[in-house]
C-alpha cells in the first residue's frame, strides 16, 4: 500500500469514531431505559406520579416533559422579538457600522456565559425582582426559568438569522425602495419573505438549546415534580430532574432517569434535525 492510501485509510477510520460514539450513546441509553419501560410501559410517558417511596415506587415522566416544553416554548416566545430586532439592527438598519459590530459581539458574549452563572443571576437578581412585582411568592417557576432561557438562547437565534438576512439580494431591496417603499415595508415584503425559512430554522435550533439547558433551570424552576399549572407555577424539567435526583438514584429510579434522558435525547435530536434540514435545503 502506498502512503496516500494509508492516509486515506486513517482519515476514514477516524470517521468511524463518530458512528461508534453516536451508536454507543443510543445503545447505552436504550439499554439503561429498558427496565423503566418494562416496568411501566407507555404509562411511563403519560403518568404524572413521581413517587420514590419504597413499596409504591412509581415514576412518570409527564411532569418533566410538560415542564421542559412549557419553559422552552416560553423562552422561544420571549426571545423572538429580541432576537428578531437584534438581527434587523445588525444585518439591516445598521449594517456594517461600528455600533452593529459592538452589538453583535455583546450578543455573542451572552453565549459565553456559563449556565451556572445565569442560574446565579436568575436566583439573586431576577427572582427577587419577580417577587417584588408580586407575580409569585417565591419567584421560582416556569416564568423565571423561561426568561433566563430566553436570554441564553438569543445568541443562537441571532447568529444564523443575521447571516440569512444579510444574504437577501440588494437588487430586490433596491427595487422595492425605488417603488417608494419605506424601510418597514421592505423588511416585511422583501426581507422576511426571502429569509423566512432561514429565520425559522435559527429559532428551531435555539429552541433545541432551551430544551437541554440544565443548571440555570434547575436553580430557578422550583423543582416540584408536578405538571405546571400556569405561568408562575413551579415545576421541573427533564434535564433538571436528572441533575437533581441522580445522586441518590439506583435501580428502578436510575433506570427511570435514564429513560427521561433517552426521551430528552430523542426530542432534541428531532428538533435539531428539523432545523438543520431547513438550513440544508437553503444552501
Amino acid at each position, binding site marked *: 500500500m502506498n502512503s496516500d492510501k494509508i492516509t486515506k485509510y486513517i482519515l476514514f477510520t477516524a470517521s468511524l469514531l463518530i458512528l461508534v460514539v453516536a451508536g454507543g450513546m443510543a445503545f447505552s441509553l436504550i439499554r439503561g431505559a429498558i427496565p423503566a419501560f418494562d416496568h411501566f410501559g407507555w404509562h411511563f410517558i403519560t403518568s404524572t406520579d413521581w413517587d420514590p417511596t419504597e413499596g409504591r415506587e412509581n415514576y412518570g415522566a409527564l411532569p418533566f416533559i410538560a415542564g421542559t416544553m412549557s419553559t422552552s416554548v416560553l423562552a422561544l416566545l420571549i426571545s423572538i422579538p429580541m432576537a428578531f430586532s437584534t438581527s434587523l439592527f445588525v444585518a439591516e438598519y445598521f449594517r456594517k457600522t461600528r455600533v452593529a459590530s459592538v452589538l453583535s459581539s455583546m450578543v455573542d458574549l451572552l453565549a459565553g*456565559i456559563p449556565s451556572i452563572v445565569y442560574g446565579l443571576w436568575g436566583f439573586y437578581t431576577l427572582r427577587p425582582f419577580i417577587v417584588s412585582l408580586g407575580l409569585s411568592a417565591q419567584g421560582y417557576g416556569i416564568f423565571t426559568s423561561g426568561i433566563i432561557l430566553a436570554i441564553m438562547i438569543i445568541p443562537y437565534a441571532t447568529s444564523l438569522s443575521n447571516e440569512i438576512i444579510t444574504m437577501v439580494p440588494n437588487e430586490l431591496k433596491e427595487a422595492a425602495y425605488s417603488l417608494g417603499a419605506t424601510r418597514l415595508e421592505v423588511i416585511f415584503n422583501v426581507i422576511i419573505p426571502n429569509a423566512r425559512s432561514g429565520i425559522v430554522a435559527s429559532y428551531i435550533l435555539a429552541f433545541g438549546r432551551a430544551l437541554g439547558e440544565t443548571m440555570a433551570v434547575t436553580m430557578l424552576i422550583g423543582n416540584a415534580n408536578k405538571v405546571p399549572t400556569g405561568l408562575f407555577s413551579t415545576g421541573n424539567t427533564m434535564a433538571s430532574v436528572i441533575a437533581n435526583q441522580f445522586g441518590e438514584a439506583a435501580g428502578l429510579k436510575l433506570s427511570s432517569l435514564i429513560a427521561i434522558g433517552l426521551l430528552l435525547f430523542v426530542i432534541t435530536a428531532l428538533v435539531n434535525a428539523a432545523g438543520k434540514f431547513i438550513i440544508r435545503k437553503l444552501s
Partner: protein
Amino acid sequence: MKATVIRDHSKARNTKNKVFLGAVIFFSLLTILPIAFIIGELVIKGIGQINLSFFTQIAPDTLEAMTAKTNGETIPGGIANGITGSILIVLLAAVMAIPFGIIIGIYLYENQGKRYSNVIRDITDVLQGVPSIVLGLIVYLWVVKNITNGYSALAGSVSLSIMMLPLIIRSTEETLKMIPETLKEAAVALGVPYHKIILRVLIPSSFSGLLTGILISISRILGETAPLMLTTLGNPQINWDITQPTSAVPLLIWDFYNDPNMVSLIWSSSLFLMGFVLTLNIISKRISAKHSIH
C-alpha cells in the same frame, strides 16, 4: 365626471416606519442589558474576595466557613482544588478531542458531497445538539460504572471531549473550505504525498482557524457543570489522579451555592470563571478576525 380621490398614506407610513425602528432599537438594547447586569453584579460582589489565597488555597469546609461567618471575618480558603481540577479535566478532554476532531474534519472536507460523509456530518450535528446532562448520564454508564468504578476526572473528561468533538470537526471543515483550491493543486502538481499535503499545506494554512475552533470549544466546556455532576462529583482536596473524584470550578460554584455558609464565595468564583471564559472567547475572535482568509 367624478374626481378620483387619491388618499395620501405617506404620513402614516412614515410614522409606522419610525415606530418600528424605535422598537427595533429598544429590543436590541434590551437584549444586551442582561450582560451588563451580570458582569456588573459579579464584579461588584466578587472582586473583594479575589486575592492570592483565592488561587492557592483549597475550598474551606462548611465548619470553617461558619466560624468565620459568625466571627464576622472573611471566609478563608480559595478555589485551588477547583482550578487544578478544571485544568486536569479540560486538558485531558482536549487531548482526546482535538486530534480526532481535526482528522475527522479533514475527512469531511476531502469527501464533500459523498453519501457516507454526509451521514457522518449529520450525526456530528446531532451530537452537537445533545444536551450536556444527557452526555453526563451516558458517560456515567460508560466510564463511572465500567472503567474507573466510581466518579473520576477521566469520566468528566470523556463527557467534555464528546462536547468538544463536533465543534472541532465542524470548525475544521469550515476553515479548510476557505483555503484556496490552488494551494492544494500546487502541492499535488509537485507530486507531494497526500499526508504531507495535509501536514504541510492544509493544517499550516488553516492554523488560525483551527486554533479559533479549539479555543471556542475549550471556552464552551470550561463552564459546564451538569455533566461533571454526574461524572467527576467533586473533591475537597487537590487531586491529580484521573481515576479519582475531582473538583472543578463550576462544581465548586454549585457547592458554594448549596451551602448557606459559603454563599459569599460564589461571586468571586463565578467572576473568575466567567472572566476566564470570556477572555478565551475574545482571544479566539481576535485571532480569527486577524487571520481569516477571504
